């Protein structure tokens, strides 16, 4: 492998990317997917995280361009040069351009966008070309199947020379210097991990499980740390059923059995109240999940395989509920354990899976492991 002279690299571990111009030869959703998979090829090897933004300036600006596109490296029409990217840095640094004159594809009937994007993002992260013909960073095009792709050894060595290896979990104890194992904290990276409740609280995202909860920044994977629930919410003890925050009111609601607590930040506001304040029928004994939808100013409560809609402005349950969860939220399988709205998407947690639901498309746009939300 080779690095750029001066070994430029990103000084932060969460990078934003934005796809500002698309190609007519693939659907936007296919392009989005190819880019996401290409970035994930690198983040699987180093402690970098990529967050997509849809407006403004991102660290890695991605676009499909034709001919001379203003960066003194004009494209040359079909074949020849396929794409290029700039080394890490401000402004043009990290930006990645694809030649719109090429026939791009998710398969092999044209140039595979995942293959070229994964190569170019190697440059955007600080790798120059490799002389190893088996390396992804070899200068000439060689199709790579996106599914089951594993970064070749030469590229892993190169990128880890810049950013070090990705550890399974930043806080995970590493023998022999790790902290003594605490039996009450389940395996931090159990791939079957599911959450009891998830909510924003101010600028932090809280994820609850049994007797512990994790606190993290929305856009940062680093600094995630588990705490016992009793250390911050003595009254809740353990096994929170559901939680949600009405940010504009600065209040959050935590549910356990037929009771709920109101907090301001971590401060409890008085004794527990009964969930029938919200207008639930008496046969409802507990809530499985709750999520506040900011634009609609409504809170969805999930109970079994049904859900209720509560109007936060009128402070009353809406009519014609409960409704079937499966009918309304197609693609989300299984009972909802927890839910939270972030950046306009609803994230549903059901067992070990986290579904990213697009309310405009009314469909699931991606499925991740729940445990990936705590850095696994």
């Amino acid at each position: 492998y080779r690095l750029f002279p001066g070994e430029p690299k990103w000084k932060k571990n969460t990078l934003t990317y934005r796809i500002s111009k698309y190609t007519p030869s693939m659907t936007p959703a296919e392009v989005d997917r190819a880019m996401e998979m290409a970035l994930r090829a690198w983040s699987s090897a180093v402690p970098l995280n990529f967050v997509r933004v849809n407006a403004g300036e991102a660290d890695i600006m991605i676009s499909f361009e034709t001919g001379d596109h203003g960066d003194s490296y004009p494209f040359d029409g079909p074949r020849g040069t396929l794409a290029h990217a700039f080394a890490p840095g401000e402004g043009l640094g990290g930006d990645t351009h694809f030649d719109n004159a090429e026939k791009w594809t998710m398969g092999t009937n044209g140039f595979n966008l995942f293959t070229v994007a994964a190569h170019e993002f190697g440059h955007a992260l600080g790798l120059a070309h490799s002389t190893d013909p088996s390396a992804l960073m070899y200068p000439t095009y060689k199709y790579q199947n996106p599914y089951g792709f594993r970064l070749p050894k030469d590229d892993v060595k190169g990128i880890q020379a810049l950013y070090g290896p990705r550890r399974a979990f930043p806080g995970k104890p590493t023998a022999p210097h790790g902290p003594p194992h605490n039996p009450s904290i389940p395996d931090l990276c159990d791939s079957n991990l599911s959450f009891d409740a998830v909510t924003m609280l101010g600028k932090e995202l809280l994820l609850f499980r049994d007797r512990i909860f994790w606190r993290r920044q929305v856009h940062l994977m680093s600094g995630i740390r588990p705490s016992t629930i009793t250390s911050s919410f003595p009254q809740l003890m353990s096994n929170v059923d559901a939680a949600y925050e009405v940010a504009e009111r600065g209040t959050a609601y935590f549910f356990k059995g037929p009771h709920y607590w109101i907090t301001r930040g971590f401060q409890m506001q008085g004794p527990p109240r009964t969930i029938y304040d919200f207008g639930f029928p008496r046969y409802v004994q507990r809530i499985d999940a709750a999520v506040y939808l900011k634009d609609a100013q409504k809170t969805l409560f999930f109970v079994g395989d049904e859900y209720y809609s509560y109007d936060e402005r009128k402070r009353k349950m809406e009519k014609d509920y409960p409704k079937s969860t499966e009918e309304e939220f197609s693609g989300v399988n299984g009972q909802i354990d927890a839910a939270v709205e972030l950046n306009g998407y609803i994230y549903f947690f059901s067992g070990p899976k986290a579904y990213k639901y697009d309310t405009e498309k009314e469909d699931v746009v991606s499925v991740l492991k729940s445990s990936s939300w705590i850095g696994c």
Partner: protein
Amino acid sequence: APSLLAASPRTSRNNYRLAQAYLDKYYTKKGGPQIGEMVARGGNSTVKKIKELQEFFGLRVTGKLDRATMDVIKRPRCGVPDVAN
């Protein structure tokens, strides 16, 4: 130019032009933002650039645009230069 090529005159003229453009793009030092490079060595004549290309791609280093070298030059690739810029 003729000494670099081992092909018929017309083809060799096209190959030479193709090769020259390739060497300008990927084996020539430029100013402007870094777009991918290695540590460059001193001044590059065309023969020297051909040798650098052949070395980079693990070809026999002849300084001539032989078939193997032209094959590499004709392959679709990344636009980032292989040497410093």
